[in-house]
């Protein structure tokens, strides 16, 4: 590949991810509005929010690490997007693979944890302790899923995973071949996105008791950007592993948005679980589903 083409891809992939992510946030709000019989926000509301947060007059920083936490949170995802193949663009996906991507997406969480830590607010620290516990909760079923998928396709290379599914058609899709793992993955996705009943660590409804407690202005704006990336990364990864990736942008985007509809709709049906109940839930059902699915893959 020509180097100019590669550079273009490396620039375009995060940019596309951000724009698609903005629409995903919009969709999330629209679904909530529909379920709660409200009108919901206008199309550009997510963008307005980011502009508003960045433009705020009061921007309180608790130190260099507080700033750098936000830089890591956004930057980690910008890097992760170049490892996630999309139609027509593979970026550097062949140089990493799914395990690397899994670990690269922990960098933003670490950044957030560092930033919150320097704020010296005990409520923030409690939020991070919950967030990391939540990560332990949803990542265990998720790595079972990753292991199953990697074994099924015989590779950890995401480009290869997509190619195999597209060559074999619908029957070879991960979700058709490994329905149990696909279900376990969906379960883990709910936790990964921090949607109800697993949203205690974000605690968006009572900002003073979560990791966001000291995050105002562009600090919160940066985390908003991170959320756009997070929604995009989680759904596109799911599409890549289970739904055959994207043959073209239309089917790709349709699948990516469709994947998110499930957790977003379910979210409003549930109350909030406590951290320990979240652990119990995510260590039980998706793990059982995943392990049974793994047995089918290995045999």
């Amino acid at each position, binding site marked *: 590949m020509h180097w100019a083409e590669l550079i273009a891809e490396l620039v375009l992939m995060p940019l596309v991810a951000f724009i698609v992510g903005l629409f995903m946030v919009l969709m999330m709000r629209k679904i909530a509005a529909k379920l709660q019989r409200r009108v919901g926000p206008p199309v550009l509301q997510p963008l307005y929010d980011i502009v508003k947060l960045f433009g705020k007059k009061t921007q309180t920083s608790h*130190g260099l690490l507080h700033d750098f936490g936000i830089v890591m949170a956004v930057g980690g995802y910008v890097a992760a997007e170049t490892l996630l193949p999309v139609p027509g663009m593979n970026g550097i996906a062949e140089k990493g693979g799914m395990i690397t991507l899994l670990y690269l997406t922990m960098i933003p969480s670490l950044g957030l944890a560092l930033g919150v830590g320097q704020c010296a607010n005990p409520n923030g620290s409690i939020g991070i302790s919950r967030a990391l516990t939540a990560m332990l909760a949803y990542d265990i079923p998720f790595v079972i899923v990753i292991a199953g998928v990697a074994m099924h396709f015989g590779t950890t290379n995401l480009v290869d995973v997509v190619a195999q599914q597209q060559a074999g058609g619908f029957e070879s899709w991960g979700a058709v071949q490994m329905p149990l793992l696909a279900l376990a993955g969906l379960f883990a996705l709910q936790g990964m996105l921090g949607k109800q009943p697993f949203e205690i660590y974000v605690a968006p409804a009572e900002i003073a008791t979560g990791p966001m407690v000291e995050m105002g202005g562009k600090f919160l704006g940066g985390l908003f950007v991170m959320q756009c990336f997070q929604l995009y990364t989680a759904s596109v990864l799911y599409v890549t592993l289970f739904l055959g990736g994207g043959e073209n942008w239309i089917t790709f985007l349709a699948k990516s948005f469709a994947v998110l509809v499930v957790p977003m709709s379910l979210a409003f049906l549930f109350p909030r679980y406590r951290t320990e109940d979240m652990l119990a839930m995510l260590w039980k059902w998706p793990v059982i589903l995943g392990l049974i699915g793994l047995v089918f893959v*290995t045999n």
Partner: protein
Amino acid sequence: MSDLDLLLSVAAIAIVLNGLLAGQQLGRWVLTALYALQFALLFSIAPGTDGAQSAVAFHLLDNPVGWQLSAFGWFFAMITIGIAGFCAAYAAGEWGATNAGSGLSMRWLYAGLQINVTAMLLLLSAGDLISLFIGWELTSWAGLILMLLGGGQALLAARRYIIYAIAGGMAIFAGLVMTAGATGSLQYAEVAAAIASVSTGTLWAITLLFVVGFAVKMAILPFHLWQPPAYAFSPGPASAFLGAISARMGLFAIGLVVLKLIGLDGFASLSLWRDVINLRDILLWAAAFTAILPTYVAMRQNDARLLLSWHGVGQGGYMLLGLMITDSLGSAGGLLHVFNYATYQAILLMAVFAVIHRTGTADLNRLGGLVARMPLTFLAMLIGIIGLAGLPPMNGFVSKWMVYRSLVTEGMPLLFVASVISTLGTVLSVYKLLHNTFLGQLRLEHEYVKEAPWSMTVPMMLLCTVVFVTGVMPGLVLGYIADAQAAIGLTPVAFVLGGIESKAGSLDMIWITGVLFAGFGIGAILFYLMGGRTKRVHQLDNYAGGHFLTADVRYQYSDNFYAGLMHRIRPWYRGTFEWAESALVSAVGAASSAARGFFEQANPALWVLVGTTLIVTWVMWHALG
């Protein structure tokens, strides 16, 4: 005199010099330079040539004894001397002066360090099983010197250590005797050639004796309880050295005996119940549990030194796990992890001891907010924990990735999941370490704490550079590993400078790091160039829950940091560890009362009858079957 003899002689003479010179600061810097000399001498040895063969050789009970450095031993020797050099530099300046002032013998500390290095070099260059055993015993006793220097709690830990070490040494000696009996030799090549004709039962016994003996040093479950306190409570640089490399001598010996002498075929033949489960599976799972359980014990520690030492046990599990996959990628990952772990564990312990040097405590509930006071030490610990947690772009990620990918593609998904569970626990645990030391609320008594002196920060920063550079370009180390693999009969790993290129999944850290830093750059542009100006508030200007708090009110969140998680898994600690320990005690009790009953019983004839009947049944079963 060969190159190896020169190195060993310098190392031996250095012990005396250490005892003479370590009292003065200038002397300690000279001794640091002496490690650089040993490092250079090691690099002048090309394993496999005459230079790596010692001219010293003698016979012991008709067995030839000699020394020869293979590429496998060379790799461990490189880490040993390197880490010892950094530890010596760390203690040379203010740390040494201050601690000598408070009664710690610098002569013993430095001499002890060099005795350890020399003993390890003798072990690593062992040319046969007798010299291996000599080196092993010297290494075990040398470790004791450093542990005893800690005083107080360290003495108890050291006593426990030496009991374990003697027991392990006994097992190894028994294995040695059995090997000599079964193969008629103690030379590597002759043993390896004769091992194929040894009966399976004998092979089981030999392998188990060696593996158990070496696993004690390696602190593989269930022989791990001695290690965390023994390593944690030694004086700073000694703790860093012991924690970083000492236990890995066990891995070296396991690799040598299991893979080189018994060989992959012999090893694979050791199976229970047909081929359902074999010794390799048992070792793999022991390694996986060693990676998981100590990690979650580490999470509960409130002493930073103990927390790290428990992780040391857990990381050893990774190395054994990788090595025992025995394919080229996984075993390379396990060996690479030895190097990577040594570098970041040394950094972490050095950072913790720098904090102790300035604040006088490693109690995670009595620290906090030091990031603005000791920024370099913070940076060192940050890089160290990213390495220990195995996140990109530090070197810990690369070795763990190799183990993961190998487990997935070799068809061991459950072990892969187990190893990731360990990593996730590590992430939680090391964040607690960093948070409770450097983040959160600054204590008033630490308001005027200064950064650690340059003599301590410079070695940390240099090691951080190693952690980062070998993380971005793992190919720099993988070359030595490929040679080491070849030396013990494994397929050498195929690598490129940035990592691994393979159809089953590649890793190119140069690209990954490149995009990561580019991403940070974009994040920084967004954050710093866009939007309103940030206003920096003072570290002590804070509030919680809408109330302004003055700095003399304690509100740091540190104790029981993962309350939700502990609520869920605390019963498991009780259910597993304590249950297993009490089960073991009662099993031993039951066995001893049964034995006692056997000797004291009134009617031995009945037992003789039962025994005879069983034997006759067994014989008939086999005769008929």
